[in-house]
């Protein structure tokens, strides 16, 4: 019998066999560990890579700014884009552009991210296979030869709205060369009804541009001029400008009647919720007060009282009153409004429509669908449009596309339409293209690229050139060819000046004197029966084209602050009747189609009215946008009277629930809504009523007073001016590298937006308060940080030093305003949501701002990088920073100038007056935090005849 080895040795050998280390191995490992640790303690190697030939004017580290224009629904907003080392990183407004006036909206701000979207179509595809442009050009050549033989009879071009003079010129030339070809244009957010209404009233289509700055009484009939859209920035600016006065005579009084909540309704002094079909009755009632004959117009009593008061107010202010109607209202209501405005001598400019195409969007698409169905279409060229997703459901456009033998789609993504076309071609993003555009009021701008095309893409101009049989050429040449006649021989100087300014001088639509408006025959509506669904463009996604933009998906919609999806808004009255709660999923059936949607109950929505936004439920948007929300386009019908209301809707419970992601509940401040967002009427203000918690009324303290030997940065936010457009939220995200966390993290309350817009409801009226960091003079977050990462600097900023932060999160819990955000995961640095960690997305980061890693606290910094840049510039010139030189990202973005930033120690600073106003207040000021961010209370100008009982 062999002697058994000692047990220790056996165990040792067994352990060694299992992969353990012995004493020698352990020592080796320890030594290498120490060596590695020491080696990693030094500075990591870094490379400096200069240019081979540095471009002139480009100094590394100094950003350049270029003026260009970005489209929304085909209309331009002038912007100035900041570019560092050849990469566009921030979009701001162009003060010289009438549709921007220096501000932006959410879509402008998010454009830099969609430029660097990893899901963009990068290569030419023939079906699913990768092909080349030369292969496509060869195929197109053959196809177009056949088309030319039949004068283009089988050729159809489908675009979105085109306002680009160059593209219009090219399309014109193509249609002249191929007379049988047709151009269809379809914009899902259409303006068919307003143009048809103008045609009814004036005999030809005209676009009405309300001059809110000159108006004192405005009645919005199911209209949302300050809601999302190409006119939002300008209309918001003008409307709020007219609501700055403290005199009840001068303060623009806004009346709104609408089926569901809009930003205009939220801003209104008086609002009534009314079924969309009954709005015409209210219009008729108003018209009757102004002299029109009126049949019996059944209206609920509160709406009738509202109509009488609004009409009286409008009549009393002739020349300063105007009525606007929205896209949901039929053409005859628009015509009636034109008549009413004519009686009122309303401050409205009428211009020839900027979009020269005269056919209605709906009819245009229907004609194309009919042609495809009758096999008349052999060659279909789609530029930018996505009808397979956003065409009305009854056209079954996605299936129809398969019938076209040669279909070409030039677009940004491999989306619903592209995947059903023969050829999928990558389109250049506006930030990387030469082009031109017109704004909603006609001003033209040259679109100049900020960067060379990232991928092998072409612009629409190059595409049209190919279709026309020429070489693709350069868009720059095509655009210059358009504007050479205008330049009058000085193309070089004119071109440079126009590019510098960002606007083509004197190109705004010239106001025309309209013929006298005909009073239309408007049949009053009977009491509607059954539910109807009011559709609206999504405030963050517009028509769904931007569904793959993570900043927009995570941008909380106004009011309920829903993110990552849409909901079926059900009126409180109906919800009680149908026994529905937030989150219940229902089957919505209309026009033979059924979709499933989660319910969101809304107070203040008209009875028998449902509401939903477009732009969700996409199937081929990309990693970010796929499967988010439900698609309402399916319920639209091209043969219905309106694309914006679906009647005859039935609801049935689907038997399940869905979690709605509502950011409103994430950050709760302690207090009643009346105290957190004080409201005052002008009458109360005149009587001397103050807002609670004046900025200067601070509880006593033992701490030494603030030093006055340097700047003392402060911010004032005017809650009357805030319309809730969210431009500031996305601007802050773009400027400060704020990460997107995705729906799963949002569900856990880990929203990372530094700036949020809180909605408070007082007596059924919503109001918006943007909440950045307060930069409290006695900040509760500072004494509790164990490692002094949250400290005060001498200029009054509460500074968050990321490299010191160890992630205790005591500061976050101690902040009464809940403005601090913690990186629970490496949202920007290693654990990005979906494909946002791709290399191209990192090009969007602002190099002046740290990209925070996991475990680090962050919050609004008053754009300390901008303050630092201004201070360094001023120091180099041996002067002080001028008032208005530091503009925070949120302040720059705001269309209504609701946010002001300046030096509290400067007696001449613009913010002094706002801080000292009687209705200024410090949020939660009674806590003694002494916030540097103060607010101005929300004012309204109610009509004394309507009294407080009327909402």
């Amino acid at each position: 019998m062999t002697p058994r080895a000692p047990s220790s040795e056996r165990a040792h050998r067994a352990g060694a066999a299992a992969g353990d280390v012995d004493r020698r191995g352990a020592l080796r490992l320890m030594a290498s560990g120490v060596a590695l640790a020491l080696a990693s303690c030094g500075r990591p190697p870094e490379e400096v890579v200069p240019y081979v030939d540095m471009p002139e004017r480009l100094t590394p580290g100094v950003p350049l700014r270029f003026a260009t224009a970005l489209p929304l629904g085909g209309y331009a907003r002038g912007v100035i884009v900041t570019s560092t080392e050849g990469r566009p990183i921030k979009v701001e407004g162009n003060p010289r552009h009438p549709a921007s006036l220096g501000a932006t909206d959410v879509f402008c701000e998010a454009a830099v991210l969609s430029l660097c979207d990893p899901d963009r179509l990068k290569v030419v595809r023939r079906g699913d296979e990768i092909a080349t442009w030369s292969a496509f050009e060869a195929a197109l050549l053959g196809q177009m030869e056949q088309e030319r033989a039949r004068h283009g009879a089988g050729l159809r071009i489908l675009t979105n709205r085109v306002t680009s003079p160059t593209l219009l010129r090219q399309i014109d030339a193509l249609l002249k060369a191929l007379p049988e070809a047709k151009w269809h244009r379809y914009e899902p957010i259409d303006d068919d009804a307003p143009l048809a209404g103008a045609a009814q009233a004036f005999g030809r289509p005209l676009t009405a541009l309300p001059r809110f700055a000159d108006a004192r009484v405005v009645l919005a009939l199911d209209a949302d001029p300050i809601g999302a859209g190409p006119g939002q920035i300008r209309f918001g600016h003008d409307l709020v400008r007219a609501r700055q006065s403290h005199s009840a005579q001068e303060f623009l009084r806004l009346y709104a009647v609408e089926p569901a909540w809009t930003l205009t309704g939220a801003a209104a002094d008086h609002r009534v919720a009314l079924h969309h079909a009954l709005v015409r009755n209210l219009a008729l009632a108003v018209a009757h007060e102004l002299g029109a004959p009126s049949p019996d117009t059944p209206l609920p009593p509160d709406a009738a009282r509202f109509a009488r008061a609004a009409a009286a107010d409008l009549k009393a202010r002739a020349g300063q009153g105007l009525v606007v109607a929205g896209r949901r209202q039929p053409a005859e209501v628009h015509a009636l409004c034109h008549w009413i405005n004519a009686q009122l001598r309303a401050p409205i400019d009428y211009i020839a429509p900027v979009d020269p195409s005269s056919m209605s969007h709906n009819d245009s698409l229907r004609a194309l669908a009919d042609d495809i169905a009758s096999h008349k279409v052999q060659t279909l060229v789609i530029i930018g449009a996505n009808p397979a997703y956003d065409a009305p459901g009854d056209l079954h456009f996605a299936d129809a596309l398969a019938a076209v033998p040669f279909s070409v789609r030039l677009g940004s993504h491999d989306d619903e339409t592209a995947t059903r076309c023969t050829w999928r071609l990558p389109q250049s993003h506006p930030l990387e293209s030469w082009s031109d555009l017109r704004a909603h009021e006609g001003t033209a701008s040259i679109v100049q690229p900020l960067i060379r095309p990232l991928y092998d893409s072409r612009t629409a101009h190059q595409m049209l050139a190919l279709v026309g049989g020429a070489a693709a050429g350069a868009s720059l040449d095509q655009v210059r060819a358009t504007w050479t006649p205008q330049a009058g021989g000085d193309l070089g100087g004119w071109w440079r000046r126009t590019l510098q300014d960002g606007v083509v001088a004197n190109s705004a639509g010239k106001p025309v004197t309209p013929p006298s408006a005909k009073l239309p025959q408007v049949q009053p509506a009977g009491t509607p029966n059954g539910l109807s669904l009011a559709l609206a463009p999504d405030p963050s996604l517009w028509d769904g084209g931007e569904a793959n933009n993570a900043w927009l998906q995570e941008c909380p919609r106004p009011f309920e602050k829903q993110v990552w999806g849409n909901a079926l808004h059900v009126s409180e009255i109906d919800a009680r009747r149908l026994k529905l709660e937030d989150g219940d999923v229902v089957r919505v059936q209309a026009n033979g189609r059924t979709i499933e949607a989660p319910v969101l109950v809304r107070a203040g929505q008209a009875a028998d009215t449902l509401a939903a936004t477009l732009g969700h439920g996409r199937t081929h948007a990309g990693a970010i946008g796929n499967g988010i929300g439900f698609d309402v386009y399916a319920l639209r019908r091209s043969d219905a009277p309106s694309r914006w209301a679906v009647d005859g809707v039935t609801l049935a419970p689907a038997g399940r629930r869905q979690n709605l992601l509502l950011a409103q509940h994430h950050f709760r401040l302690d207090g009643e809504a009346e105290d957190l967002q004080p409201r005052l009427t002008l009458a109360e203000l005149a009587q001397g009523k103050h807002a609670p918690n004046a900025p200067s009324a601070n509880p006593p303290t033992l701490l030494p007073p603030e030093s006055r030997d340097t700047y003392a940065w402060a911010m004032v936010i005017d809650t009357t001016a805030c319309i809730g457009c969210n431009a500031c939220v996305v601007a802050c995200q773009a400027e400060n590298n704020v990460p997107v966390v995705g729906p799963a993290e949002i569900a856990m309350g880990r929203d990372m937006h530094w700036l949020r817009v809180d909605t408070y409801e007082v007596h059924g009226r919503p109001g918006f308060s943007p909440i950045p960091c307060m930069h409290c003079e006695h900040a509760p977050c500072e004494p509790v940080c164990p490692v002094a990462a949250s400290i005060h600097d001498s200029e009054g900023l509460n500074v968050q030093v990321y490299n010191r932060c160890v992630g205790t999160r005591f500061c976050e819990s101690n902040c009464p305003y809940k403005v601090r955000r913690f990186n629970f995961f490496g949202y920007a640095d290693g654990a990005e949501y979906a494909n946002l960690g791709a290399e191209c997305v990192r090009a969007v980061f602002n190099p002046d701002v740290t990209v925070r890693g996991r475990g680090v606290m962050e919050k609004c910094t008053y754009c300390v990088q901008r303050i630092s840049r201004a201070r360094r510039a001023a120091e180099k010139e041996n002067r002080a920073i001028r008032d208005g030189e530091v503009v925070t990202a949120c302040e720059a973005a705001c269309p209504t100038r609701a946010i002001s930033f300046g030096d509290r120690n400067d007696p001449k600073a613009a913010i002094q007056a706002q801080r000292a106003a009687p209705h200024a207040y410090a949020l939660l000021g009674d806590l003694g935090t002494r916030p540097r961010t103060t607010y101005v209370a929300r004012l309204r100008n109610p009509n004394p005849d309507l009294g407080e009982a009327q909402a």
Partner: protein
Amino acid sequence: MPQLFRPYADTVARSVLVALLVLPFAGIALAYWTMRSNYITGETVTLEQPVPFSHAHHVGGLGLDCRYCHSGVETSAVAGVPPTHTCMTCHSQLYTQTAMLAPVRESLANGTPIHWNKVNRLPDYVYFDHSIHIAKGVGCSTCHGPVDRMRLMRQAAPLTMGWCLACHRDPAAHLRPPEKIFDTEWQPPADQAEQGKKLAAFYHVDNKHLTDCSVCHR
């Protein structure tokens, strides 16, 4: 019965007790000393470069001004390293065949930039701006050392936060007149304290708030 503990067991026990008291302090001291050593800060370490560029020859010998190559230093946060074209302003005509300059010629021919190894590295969380320092009287050689005598570039200062703070707390000791900013030979004169005070007033350098965290960390 044999002793469980050998005679040296006492010594071992006492040594362990002493070590328990002394070693932590010694260890921390060693760590602090290591972190300040050139090994960690990189001071005096000469890094390999794709081209062995000699500042001693170009600056000391030929008298090139710093700004000829580091052109961004007065306007930008980043001083910059010259593009290949700057090298080729001379080397398209001088030393056109030397093997040492082959990477430069290749860079020009192929359009690929030269990857230099950065010598004066700061962590990413430090936002340093050259232009403001130049504007306020801090000369190049104050931080970068006697570059005109360096045959190969090395880091001449520890570039630790403490080292930066030493000047931020008392800039007057390191300021120089405007015409001497790019003078690599300048040394502080004997009366620097007095001169420095005058210069600080001239440059409007106010060191009351230079040590705010937000000046460098954002």
